């Protein structure tokens, strides 16, 4: 059975009958006419699958499977949106999905790294940050800081930290965050959170889809 998480920038695919690891492919390389999977999630998923699972449901089920605890907050930072689920005593306690004013965070971070030719893995987490509510609106802080004499790298690092703090607030400031999504690989972003981060990687939603196979 073929499972897929169709994200904005990347598509994650897994064949449950294969022992191979999930595949990661750029969303813009998908053949829209021929692509067909059995179960999908992600905001582009409905058009490619007979069965669609809500992204928050897939995230929550994947978290329950991977984390194995009764109480946790799992935050997914994607290209286009951020979302989280909080469990307490094994029951859903809270959740959120910001696809509007908190949107484009991951996308903007990736864009800035390429635009300024930066290497986030080699950059230190700054002491301060910009106050940012969204990737798009936050860009003006970078331009202002550069005009005022800061280096591009310093300004972008403050922007990234501002985005991390915004995501932390969005998830209601938990003691520990389990992090999902492509930004798990971004050390500058992960290091910018004011709480411990446990990265679960890009395939949490796929894990959630797997549990769908055993749902009644």
């Amino acid at each position, binding site marked *: 059975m073929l499972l897929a998480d169709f994200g904005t920038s990347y598509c994650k695919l897994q064949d449950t009958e294969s022992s191979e690891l999930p595949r990661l492919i750029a969303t813009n390389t998908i053949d829209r006419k021929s692509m067909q999977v059995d179960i999908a999630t992600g905001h582009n998923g409905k058009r490619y699958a007979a069965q669609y699972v*809500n992204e*928050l*449901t897939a995230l929550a089920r994947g978290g329950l499977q991977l984390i194995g605890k009764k109480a946790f907050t799992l935050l997914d930072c994607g290209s286009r949106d951020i979302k989280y689920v909080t469990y307490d005593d094994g029951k*859903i306690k809270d*959740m959120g*999905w910001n*696809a509007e004013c908190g949107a484009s965070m991951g996308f903007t971070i990736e864009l800035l790294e390429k635009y300024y030719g930066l290497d986030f893995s080699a950059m230190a987490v700054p002491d301060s940050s910009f106050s940012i509510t969204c990737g798009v609106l936050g860009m003006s802080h970078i331009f202002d800081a550069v005009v005022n004499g800061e280096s591009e790298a310093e300004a972008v690092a403050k922007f990234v930290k501002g985005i991390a703090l915004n995501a932390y607030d969005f998830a209601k400031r938990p003691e520990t965050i389990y992090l999902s999504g492509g930004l798990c690989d971004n050390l500058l972003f992960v290091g910018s959170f004011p709480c411990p981060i446990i990265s679960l990687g890009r395939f949490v939603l796929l894990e959630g889809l797997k549990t769908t196979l055993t749902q009644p």
Partner: protein
Amino acid sequence: MNENKRQRAGIVGIPPLSVMELLASPEYEVFDLDEPQGKTSIETASPFLPKVYCGILRTVVANSLKIKPDIIYIDTGSGKCDCAVHTATVLEDILPNTRIVRTRNHDATDFGIPLCRTKMNLMGKMAAITASVQIPFPYEDIMECTPTAGFWGVPPRDFSLLKLFPDTTHIYGWARCMENKTPDNLDLEMHFNPHVPTVFFAQSFCAKTALARHLASKHPYGLYLDCDVTAGNSVKAKIQAFLELSGM
């Protein structure tokens, strides 16, 4: 006055019962201006109210511009909101031929809440509650059901988000105050059932977002939700996932 001699009366919020008894007369054709009336673009309100403003009151202005009522009863007391106070001023200026009557509804007689607690699809239930505002008579007895979920808040601008709830959803919050005909009963508005998963809803940019979020944080299984003019995919997905993961 229109040709058919019936006065076109608009209502905003819940005017006092004495007003609704007056409007129940055949001399009046009543329009609930809080609700979309036909295919009126909400953007027609944009020259007169900020776009970042309560979607319900933007709807009020859009409806008023289209219908041009002879008279508008707009509740500007604590049973509605401060935004309505200012919207009344705007309406007065942009509709010089319409008489704007500001009311403050302090009615305290409980009419009961049978619709809030009955088994019915939530869209139909909410529509019946908003329609009940225009009926100044006691309700008929309706069978109560055991709740499996809760919807706390005001009737949303976009009723489509209500489709996702089970028929056994009980209604709380200001919508409950509406049915009870006591719109400024804060104790009733703040009541919720801690034993059923509950969505605490408020219109974006409405002062009630603070209360909705506060109560959701106190509820053991509460989800805070706000939504502007139309319910987008993320709003619907939140409701769907919340109910699904709560075992609905």
